[in-house]
């Protein structure tokens, strides 16, 4: 029998209780409020929510740090910038502006990125190479880039379609009245691989589940919203994802 753990000492319960809820404003609005990108009235309303919400308060604090860097030594920052200038985009090297990828097309790294990756290997800058092999994230979400999958009662944000590497998390738009979301990950035949519940609109794949996903394979996922009594309020469409290798 599992020993009872006090709620304040249960990391899983704390992670859920402190997460975002369906009442929370979109992240992009919180970031905009913290970075002075809204009217004063809009900003005040968002900050009032953030003051009493652990997740949104933390988001605002993190974003505010982007506007007013502090807490780090200037010389350390300069070392980071030197690394960027020596090896990355914005390094004084001519950059190509990538054309938007056609729907359904396989992903391909920009030409300069391939050139840069090859150059990094030659130069022995191993840490950057290692990162590109192991940590390219799935789809970025942000203003102007969120692609929502409609067709179900819950709108899915990411991952959708082709993703670079095994995704770390699944996300969707909030449903009014939802107390909990149930997530299911499916194999290509539609059989469940695993899943779980969260109060947030983001579900992080635990190591056991993520470990079952392979590159160059197709999967699907769906999410349903439950009220406090466990009754299903809404569900998403089944969303297909294709996991591409993070390096060739």
């Amino acid at each position, binding site marked *: 029998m599992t020993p009872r753990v006090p709620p304040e000492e249960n990391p899983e319960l704390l992670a859920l209780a402190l997460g975002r809820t369906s009442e929370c404003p979109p992240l992009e609005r919180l970031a905009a409020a913290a970075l002075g990108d809204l009217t004063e009235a809009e900003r005040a309303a968002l900050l009032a929510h953030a003051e009493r919400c652990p997740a949104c308060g933390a988001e605002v604090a993190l974003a505010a740090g982007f506007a007013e860097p502090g807490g780090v030594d200037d010389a350390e920052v300069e070392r980071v910038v030197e690394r960027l200038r020596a090896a990355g*985009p914005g390094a004084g090297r001519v950059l190509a502006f990538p054309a938007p990828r056609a729907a359904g097309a396989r992903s391909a790294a920009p030409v300069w990125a391939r050139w840069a990756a090859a150059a990094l290997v030659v130069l022995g800058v191993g840490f950057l190479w290692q990162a590109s092999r192991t940590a390219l994230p799935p789809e970025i979400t942000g*203003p102007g880039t969120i692609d929502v999958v409609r067709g179900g009662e819950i709108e899915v944000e990411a991952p959708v379609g082709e993703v670079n590497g095994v995704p770390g998390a699944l996300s969707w738009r909030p449903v009014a009245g939802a107390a909990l979301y149930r997530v299911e990950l499916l194999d290509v035949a539609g059989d469940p691989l695993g899943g779980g519940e969260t109060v947030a609109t983001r579900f992080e794949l635990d190591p056991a589940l993520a470990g079952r996903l392979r590159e160059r394979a197709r999967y699907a996922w769906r999410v349903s919203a439950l009220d406090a009594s466990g009754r299903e309020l809404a569900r998403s469409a089944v969303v297909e994802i294709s996991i591409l290798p993070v390096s060739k």
Partner: protein
Amino acid sequence: MPPIDSDRQADEQLVRAAQQDAAAAPQLLDELFRRHQRRVGAWALRWCDGRTEDAADLAQEVFLRVQEKLAGFRFESAFTTWLYLVTRTVALNRADAARRRPAVSLEEHELDPEDSAAPADEVASRAQQVALLRAAVVAVLEPLEARVLHLHYTDGLTLPAIDRLLGLDNKSGAKAYLVAAKRKLRRHFEGRGPGARAAAEEEA
């Protein structure tokens, strides 16, 4: 931060010009990225608790993703806001990937593998536990204490990284807020009697 050129174009003008003029795009984007390298680098340093190589790695990946995504920027926010969201997403995804590595333990308590297939009544019970704990957090914790808990338990940040990200300069930093928060929550549940504690402790 570097001095600001008052004659320079706004970030959004640079992006728009780059989207409209393929020949000029490389130089325009180079200028755009140069403007923000220190901002991204400083934030990455705090996220990585001062580890320069990790921060450079993170910042590099941010600009790679910006490069990939910028054609889809729709000017619905300031460029800086959009850049921050890309930075945050890359940082969280890297933290997710790090937690998935077997060398990193899952904190003090392993997740119950049966949770993923919990029946409806157990889901309802779990939802009630979460609701009770969230209500306690809002009722008894200071906002800063709740934010520290969120960053540590939900986002998985280390306490030294939270110190830097929130600019905490008290003697024990985030650890002091975490300890105080847990003490307040423990007293809250004890103060509501054994029934309330049992409800919050009940294992789904």
